[in-house]
Each structure stands twice: as structure tokens, then as C-alpha cells.
């Protein structure tokens, strides 16, 4: 999984990645520095994922940072980044990741594998 997201994670000013299922379950997370609280699957995240229903992607601009959420076949990918992150490159990497993973069947069964891995 880490390998799958390595291009995104290695992009300048990307601070972390979370992948949530449509049921709000945390499938994968990786942060460059630990968060004060673990983003475990909970009602909080279910509400967040539900609020994204029908949305392909959102760019969320905060005062200090930026969040990019992208719908995948199995849930939403949330990328946390600084304000200097190259967002066009990150979007492109998501496009490439999603299309190539579909082509190569990587996503297929990914969730099950990830559950085992976690």
C-alpha cells in the first residue's frame, strides 16, 4: 500500500495520506509526522465521508494547510498537504494511480488485503 502511494507521499509538502472506506473505516494512513490524535475509524469519519456523497474530488483550503479528497472505487483518499504543495502534480499522480491501478487490477481486493495488513 505504501508502495502504491509512494509517489504522492514523496511529493514536496505532502504531510500524509488517509484512505477511508465509504463506511468511514480507516483503510490506510501514513503521515510524515504523527498526529496528536489517531484518525481511527469512527462516527466522526463516517459523517465526513457521508458529507462527500456524490463528490468526485474536493480541494479544502484551511488557514495553515490544505486537504485534497478524491473518490476511489473503495472510498475516499484524503491527502493532507502544506500550502506550498504542487497540487496539479498531486492531482495528476492521483489520476495516474487510479487509472493504472484499475488497469493492473491492483485495487481489486485491496481492501481485504489491507485489513489483513493492518
Amino acid at each position, binding site marked *: 500500500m505504501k508502495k502504491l502511494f509512494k509517489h504522492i507521499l514523496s511529493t514536496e509538502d505532502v504531510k500524509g495520506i488517509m484512505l477511508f472506506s465509504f463506511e468511514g473505516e480507516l483503510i490506510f494512513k501514513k503521515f510524515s509526522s504523527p*498526529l*496528536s*490524535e489517531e*484518525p481511527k475509524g469512527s462516527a*466522526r469519519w463516517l*459523517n*465526513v465521508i457521508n*458529507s*462527500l456523497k*456524490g*463528490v*468526485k*474530488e*474536493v*480541494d*479544502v*483550503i*484551511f*488557514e*495553515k*494547510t490544505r*486537504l485534497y479528497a478524491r473518490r476511489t472505487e473503495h472510498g475516499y483518499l*484524503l491527502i*493532507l498537504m502544506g500550502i*506550498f504543495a*504542487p*497540487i*496539479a*502534480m498531486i492531482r*495528476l499522480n492521483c*489520476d*495516474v494511480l487510479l*487509472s*493504472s491501478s484499475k*488497469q493492473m487490477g491492483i485495487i481489486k481486493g485491496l481492501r481485504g488485503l489491507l485489513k489483513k495488513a493492518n
Partner: protein
Amino acid sequence: MTRNILVVDDDQEMLLSLKEGLEGYGENFSVLMAGDGLVAVEKLKISPISLVVSDIRMGRMDGFTLLTYIMQYYPGIPVILMTGYGTDDTERQALARGALGYIEKPFTIENLSRQIMTVTRRESDGGTLQGISSGNFLQLIGMEEKTCTIRLVDKLYDKHGVLFFKEGELLNARVGNLQGEAAAYEIFAWDEVNLSIQNACHQKERKIKSDLQAVLLEAMRLKDEAADNGEEPVSPLELKEESGNGYEVRESKEMSITNHIKSKVEGKLGKKCGLMDICEDDSWDSLLTQMAKIGEFLGAGKLKLVYVDKEESNDFILLPGQETTVISVNPKCPRERIIQALTDKQTP
């Protein structure tokens, strides 16, 4: 996709009669004219050309010299040579030097237009695609190891470009007078394009040394850098942060919030920046509330703006405040520049 045919002849009467005759085929192609080879070279630099039809005998620069120039600098553009003094040797030379066709004067307009349409149809023999993101598609060309010539039109600014692929390797790119990696960077920065694919590549020389992935990523980096540097400087809206959560447009007796945002954004980015509608709409409050909560959890600070793509005919920009302001935008809009315009602070 518009196809421009460049007709080159130093006989003004001939040139005008060809133009008049070919204009009858305006549904299929447009006609540009050049009075000799040198004028044609200048036209090639500034206009996207699909085919050149040139006389051979001309002053300053003749048809053979023009053909040689095109083969070297614009190998994707086919050339038909015409002459009133043809011999078997002239025809043999024309074809040997790379001309796609050869036609002897006098000829009928119908005959010439048939040849033109046969050639231009080949430009899209591999198919056409409308309104796609170029980066993702071109990755697939690389993965499929295709040999092809791709002609692209940037939907936002109506710029034309050409990419030459041989077995998935990007050999060259061209936009106007720009070639090589510089042209590729520009093309790859286009957000949405129409393109046609020709299943052939006439480019011989490899002008782009880096691999496709590297060029794509560098193009994205340059695009981000350009946005960061504000190459087309965008001054901020006169928005100020409230003490609470969100924005409040500085009060103006003359302007409503809607007019204020519209005039400011369009004033900086132009009328074609893609703003469609601005209104207050509380149906997005749930999404904004959840995003604000994520911000709290992540220690990200106050929520400033949310850009939403629902794969509908419009995208939406949400500005939190006592009332949520929703800006509908064309999905082809320069997203980053609008976000920058809306989020940059200006000291009151």
C-alpha cells in the same frame, strides 16, 4: 477540430482563384494564403497548419526549399506540390524529398480538394477525443507504446499543439514556434483538450531526451510554480476574515456580495475565467461543517474555502460565513488561480 490549409503561390491571381474555389469547402477546412515560401514559413510559425499546398517555382524561396524546411521543422505537416512546368523528373524529385502529393496545373478545384480531404482525414484516423485531461491520456499512449501524432487544442485558450510519439516515446512537441521539451511543458499544462490521433509519426529526430513521465511531472511542477508566482498576477478579493468562522465581504453600499466577487475575480482573471453564478445556499452547510471539523482535528486552522467537483456541468466553490456563498464555475476554469484570488488576504 479546425483544419487550416496553407496555399503558397507567388502568382496572386492563381492564389486568389484557389482561395475562392477552396472556400466552397469551408465546412471541411479553412484556407490561409502565402505569397511565397518565406511568407509561408512565417505563417507556419504562428498558425496551426494541417496541410501545405505549394507551387514549385517561386521567387525568394521556391517550393522545393519550402518542402525541405517543412520536412525538417514541421515533419507532421504534409505537403502537396503543384507546378505548371511539370516533368516526370520533377514529380520524382518532389516525392523523393517527402511531398505527399504532386499535382500539375491546370487542375480542377474538385481534384485538389479531394486530395486535401484525403490527407486531412488521415490526421484523425486513430480517432478523436473531446474535453479530456491531456496528462492522463498521454500516460496511456506511453504505456501502450503507440506510434502516433497527436494534435491537441486547448479548450480554454484555443491554442494548438502537436505531439509525436514513436513506440510510446515522446520524440517532439510543437506549439507555434516552440519545439521540444518547452513545447511539451506548455501542452501538458493544458487542463482540458480536444485531440485527434493520427496513426503515424513522421518525426525522425528525437528532440525530447527525457522520458514521458519526467516531462509530465516537470510540466506539473512548472505549472504549480507559475501559479505560485502569479505569472498573471491576481490581486485578492476584498475579503476579510471575520472574528468567527469564515469570510465577510467588506461592506459596500454599491455592490452586493455577488457583484463584488464577480467583478473582482473577473477583473483580475478576465471575463472568460469561468464564473457562472454566485448565490447563497445553505444546502452545502453539512459538507462545510464536516470539513471545518477535519480542520480542527488536524490543527489546520480556520476553513477558508472548499472547491467541489461533482462531475456535473459546473463545479462549486464554497465560501463559509454566516451565510454560505456558493460560486458555480465552469469545470475548465483556472481552478488554482481562482482559489488564490479568493483566499489571498488583503489588509483592510
